[in-house]
């Protein structure tokens, strides 16, 4: 068998920062045993007006499931307190799907024979024009993870174009070094999201077989590098279902919690993607993340960090999304196309990363939010 590179060792071109957050997150995750929490721990957690780490752990545990209704009600109360009726809208824009990583679960992985493509500046502008015409003012720029094919400069140019059309520009691209983030920030992006996928580093090693992404600690320190470089906000996520989702959700929350304590000005955001289980059979895989568990995780994030932004993915169906924005999520994508070049009038150039479950347009989501008594917000941001 081919010898793979050590996933815990930084490559020579990777920034190494001085921080103990990574070790603290891993330690907390390893210590977390969801099964040891009892009904009493859950009830105590519900009693506390501000949730402790232990409360968060209890709310994520199986013991909390019978109290999901109560938890959801509390989550809704907290969401209303902090966000009122507002729900932010945005759309992702994939500008390239070249990828050097070999992640066994991902449609973009370098071994998959899909149509690869990358938009040039003119095409990016066309896509952005088309998106801006729908009324959106926030765009999330995405690429596959290939520094070779979509370099820092290329992404920076895309951000500069985006600033002409949008008030909020976020990034979901490969993890970068501090100087790169500084440059990208100057180009107009202020938010960086990187999914850790799983915090279980042993499992991580078996899923990310090649490419920069294989290096686990470098990825885990991405948010901190972005904040050091001056970014305003950072996003966190585990792809729930890759490993033990409760441990992963706990680690995600702890990661965000520790970052916020160290960088109190940082705007914190969660995404809650899950691997859609193929067979929901408790005997085969008791750790499947179904809608119930997903709701539990999202509510636990909300109660633990009531001020955080929570994004709900188009991986979920319209019914789930419409309901969750009334409970705990505060951000919803619309008019989503996860391929390359699908927004403008031109032909789609590259294939999709995953299958979406909610293909509604901006207009449709906008009016559904209004019908449900929520206020769609296109931008809650001022560029200063």
């Amino acid at each position, binding site marked *: 068998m081919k010898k793979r590179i050590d996933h815990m060792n930084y490559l020579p071109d990777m920034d190494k920062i001085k921080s103990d957050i990574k070790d603290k997150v891993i330690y907390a995750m390893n210590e977390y045993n969801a099964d040891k929490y009892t009904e009493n721990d859950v009830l105590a957690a519900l009693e506390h007006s501000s949730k402790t780490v232990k409360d968060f752990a209890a709310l994520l545990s199986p013991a909390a499931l019978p109290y999901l209704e109560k938890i959801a009600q509390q989550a809704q109360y907290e969401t209303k307190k902090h966000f009122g009726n507002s729900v932010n809208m945005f759309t992702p824009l994939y500008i390239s799907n070249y990828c050097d990583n070999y992640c066994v679960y991902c449609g973009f992985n370098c071994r998959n024979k899909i149509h690869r493509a990358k938009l040039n500046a003119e095409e990016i502008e066309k896509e952005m024009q088309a998106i801006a015409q729908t009324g959106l003012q926030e765009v999330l720029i995405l690429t596959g993870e290939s520094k070779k094919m979509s370099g820092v400069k290329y992404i920076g140019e895309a951000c500069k174009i985006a600033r002409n059309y949008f008030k909020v520009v976020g990034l979901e691209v490969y993890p970068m070094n501090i100087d790169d983030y500084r440059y990208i920030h100057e180009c107009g992006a202020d938010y960086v999201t990187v999914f850790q996928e799983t915090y279980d580093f042993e499992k991580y090693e078996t899923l990310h077989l090649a490419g920069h992404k294989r290096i686990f600690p470098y990825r885990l320190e991405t948010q901190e590098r972005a904040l050091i470089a001056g970014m305003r906000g950072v996003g966190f996520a585990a792809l729930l279902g890759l490993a033990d989702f409760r441990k992963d959700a706990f680690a995600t929350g702890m990661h965000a919690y520790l970052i916020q304590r160290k960088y109190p000005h940082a705007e914190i955001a969660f995404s809650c993607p899950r691997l859609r289980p193929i067979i929901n059979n408790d005997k085969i895989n008791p750790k499947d993340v179904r809608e119930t568990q997903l709701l539990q995780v999202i509510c636990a994030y909300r109660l633990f960090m009531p001020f955080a932004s929570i994004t709900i993915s188009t991986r979920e169906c319209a019914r789930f999304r419409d309901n969750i924005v009334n409970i705990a999520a505060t951000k919803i994508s619309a008019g989503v196309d996860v391929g390359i070049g699908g927004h403008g009038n031109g032909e789609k150039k590259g294939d999709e990363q995953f299958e979406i479950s909610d293909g509604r347009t901006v207009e449709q989501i906008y009016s559904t939010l209004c019908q449900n008594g929520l206020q769609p917000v*296109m*931008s809650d941001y*001022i560029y200063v």
Partner: protein
Amino acid sequence: MDNDKLIIGRHEFSSRFILGSGKYSLDLIDAAVKNARAEIITLALRRAATGNTANILDYIPKDVTLLPNTSGARNADEAVRIARLAREIGCGDFVKIEIIRDTKYLFPDNYETIKACEILANEGFVVMPYMYPDLNVARSLRDAGASAVMPLGAPIGSNKGLATREFIKILIDEIDLPIIVDAGIGKPSQACEAMEMGADAIMANTAIATAGNIPQMAEAFRKAIEAGRQAYLSGLGRIIENGASASSPLTGFLEN
């Protein structure tokens, strides 16, 4: 009561209820303003969207005074830039300074707030700083040219009421500027309590925006604020104000 005006800068207001606009469904803002009889409404400039979708500015009645805030600013420089931008786009000369670099509690940064206050007051803005109730800071804000001070009652959105009661009371006693309690007021009774104590006005947002019946809650707040003001003006009975007092004089034994 008819001549009881709230004076901020050189502007006079009959209403002592400042309404936030950030957490509503836009089509309810109008009803909230009307029922609150509010004359000042805050507006986060970062929300004042330009473009083809719903713009909050279109939903705010034209006859109220806009109080743009600098939310989104993390330091004095950013607040100053946002305030200037607000003036440029026609939001008037009022500005509520909000400088926050704590995403968890959203506490105002008093030090940066004083710096921004000085710059903006010099540029002719009617400056109303949101602040953590600290007497020294309130004095500095006054000296820097603030037209009012807006101490927090409790963390934003917490609905905890007058958690900082004693400190706000000191500001009321010591600072000759309108003291407007901002943040944390969750119920009309809490607004009433602050007004009874001598606060000059109340600013509320979450409590109304998230109420079951928004226009009705706006009205309830208005009435509570008016009641509290009236009680304050009429002078609270000494028992309420100063605690228990003996019914027969303690000094009657003195031989004069």
